[in-house]
C-alpha cells in the first residue's frame, strides 16, 4: 500500500520547469531514496508534497490526503527540509519546545529527541553556534517530535562528517525497522545506498527510474576484484566456467560478469586461498550517472 503517492506532478517557476509530470509511489514501511543531481527538482517535489509550494499540475498526497488536509500533520509526518531553518539566537531546546507546542506535544519530548540525536549536552546552546552537522541533527530531532510514521528527509547527510553519516544511516534503518516510511533525498547514490529499499531517480524534473537497488544494478557491468597467491589457477578455473577474467597484477584479478559469491565458491572448490574479495561498488554510481547524464535546468528553489 502506497503511503506517498505523486501523480503527474508539475511545477513551473516562471520559465523554469522544475518538476515535469512526475509520478511515483512510496510504500508503507519502506525506505526510499529520492535521488537526482543538484537542480533535478527533488526539493521542489518534497515542498509540494508538504504543502509549502503549490503545484502547477498533478497531485502529491500522504495517506491519500494533501498535507494541508492532514489533521495534526506533525503527528503523521516529520520533515527535515533545510539546515538553515533555525533562529540563530534561539537555544536548541527552545526551538524544540516551540515546535512541540505548535504540534500539541508534551514539552518533555524536546529532551527526548535531543537525546535521540545525541545533542542532549547542547540543548541550552544557541543554534547560531551549531555546526552544519549539529543543525542537521537538530532538524531530525524536530522531525521526530511527533513520533511520526512518515519521515521526509531532504539531503539529511549534508554537512555530516563520516561518523554522522554512519549515525544517520543507522537511524534511518532503525526507523524502517520500526515500520516507518522514509523518503530520503540525496544527490549521491552512495550516501543512501546502504539505507534504502528502493530508489526513485529524477533528472530535469522527470522520473528516470523507480526500482529496487538490485533491479537498478541488475543490468550493470559488475567487477569483482580478487587478491590471491594462486591468481593464475583461479583465472583458469573462472575461464573454464566461461567467466571473463583480467589479470591486473601478479596476485590480482578482475572478474567481470560474475558475483562475488560465485567467485568465492569456485575458489573454495579449487582450494585456492583468497586474501581479498571485493565487488566494485562504483558500478552503482555508474548506473546513477548514466541515468542522470542529461543536462538539467536549474531548480527553481
Amino acid at each position, binding site marked *: 500500500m502506497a503511503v506517498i503517492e505523486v501523480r503527474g506532478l508539475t511545477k513551473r517557476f516562471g520559465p523554469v520547469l522544475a518538476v515535469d509530470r512526475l509520478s511515483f509511489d512510496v510504500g508503507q514501511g519502506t525506505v526510499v531514496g529520492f535521488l537526482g543531481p543538484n537542480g533535478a527538482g527533488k526539493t521542489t517535489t518534497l515542498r509540494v508534497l508538504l504543502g509549502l*509550494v503549490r503545484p502547477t499540475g498533478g497531485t502529491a498526497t500522504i495517506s491519500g490526503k494533501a498535507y*494541508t488536509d492532514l489533521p495534526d500533520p506533525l503527528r503523521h509526518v516529520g520533515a527535515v527540509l533545510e539546515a538553515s531553518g533555525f533562529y540563530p539566537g534561539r537555544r536548541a531546546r527552545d526551538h524544540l519546545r516551540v515546535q512541540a507546542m505548535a504540534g500539541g506535544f508534551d514539552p518533555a519530548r524536546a529532551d527526548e529527541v535531543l537525546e535521540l540525536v545525541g545533542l542532549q549536552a547542547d540543548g541550552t546552546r544557541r543554534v547560531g553556534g551549531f555546526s552544519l552537522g549539529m543543525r542537521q541533527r537538530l532538524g531530525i530531532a524536530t522531525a521526530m517530535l511527533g513520533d511520526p510514521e512518515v519521515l521526509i528527509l531532504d539531503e539529511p547527510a549534508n554537512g555530516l562528517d563520516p561518523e554522522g553519516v554512519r549515525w544517520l544511516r543507522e537511524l534511518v534503518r532503525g526507523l524502517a525497522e520500526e515500520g516507518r516510511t522514509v523518503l530520503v533525498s540525496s544527490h549521491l547514490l552512495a550516501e543512501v545506498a546502504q539505507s534504502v529499499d528502493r530508489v526513485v531517480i529524477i533528472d530535469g524534473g522527470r522520473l528516470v527510474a523507480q526500482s529496487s537497488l538490485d533491479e537498478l544494478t541488475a543490468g550493470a557491468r559488475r567487477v569483482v576484484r580478487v587478491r590471491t597467491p594462486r591468481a593464475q589457477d583461479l583465472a583458469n578455473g573462472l575461464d573454464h566456467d566461461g567467466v571473463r577474467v583480467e589479470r591486473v597484477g601478479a596476485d590480482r584479478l578482475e572478474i567481470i560478469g560474475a558475483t562475488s559469491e560465485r567467485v568465492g565458491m569456485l575458489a573454495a572448490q579449487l582450494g585456492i586461498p583468497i586474501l581479498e574479495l571485493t565487488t566494485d561498488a562504483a558500478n552503482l554510481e555508474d548506473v546513477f550517472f548514466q541515468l542522470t547524464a542529461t543536462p538539467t535546468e536549474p531548480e527553481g528553489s
Partner: protein
Amino acid sequence: MTRSVRTELLKLRTIRLPLGLLATAAGLTALVTILGAATGGGGHGGRHMAAPPLNTAAGLQAMLTRTGFGMLMAAVLGVTVVRGEFRHGTATATYLATPDRVRVLIAKAMAAAGAGLTFGLVAAGLSTGISLTFVAAKGYQVALAWGTIARFGAGAILGSGLLAAVGVSLGALFRSQIAAIVTVFAWALVVEQIIGGLFDAAQPYLPYTAATTMAGATLGGGTSPLPFAAAAALVAGVAALVSAAAARTTVQADVS
C-alpha cells in the same frame, strides 16, 4: 487558535530581538521625555503648537504623551514576527505545524498585539514617571486629573498593541523586512505629517496619528481627535485591511 497564539508568544520569549526593541523603545521614550521636561515643558505636545510649561495641564499632557516610540517599536516588532521567520527559514517549520496560513497570520497578529501592549505599558510608565518626577522636583501641582493620566496610559498601551498588529500585516505584505520597517517609520514620521499638515480634517483618520491621540496627543489646527473607541476601531480596521491584502498575496505564496 489558542495553541497557535501560545506558540507565537513562546517564539517571542525565546529570542532576544523583542527585548532589544523594548529596550530601544524605553531608551528613546526616556530620552525625549527627559529632554522635554528638562527644557521646561517641551514643545511637541501638539502638531502645530509649542507646549506650555509643566505646571499647566497642556504642558504636562505634552510630556505624558511622548509614547510614540513605544508604538513605533511595537509596529517594528510586528514586522519582525512575520519577516523574521522568512529571513531565518523558520517559516517552513511554522507552516509544517500549521498549514493554515491565515490561522498563522491571525495568531501572529494576536501574539504581537499582546507583546505590543508591553511596549505601550513601558513607554507610558516611563513618560508618566519621568514627567511626574520633574513636576515634583519643581514643586508643581499635578495639573491633570489622575483619571486623565490613566486614560493616556491606557491609550498608549492599546495603541501599541494595535500598531503591533498592523506591523504583522505589513510584514506579511512585504517581501523585505527592511522595506517593511522603513515603511513603518516613513509612514508615521513623514507621510502622516505631510498629509496632516496639508489637510487638518484628515489628521484624526491617519492610523498612527489616531493611535497617538488615544494616548493623549493633541492635533494642530484646532482639529478634534476621534473618540478613544473610534480611534481604536480605526487602527484595528487598518490592521484587518492590510492583513486581508496580505492574505491574498504573500500568505498564498510558495515557501521555498
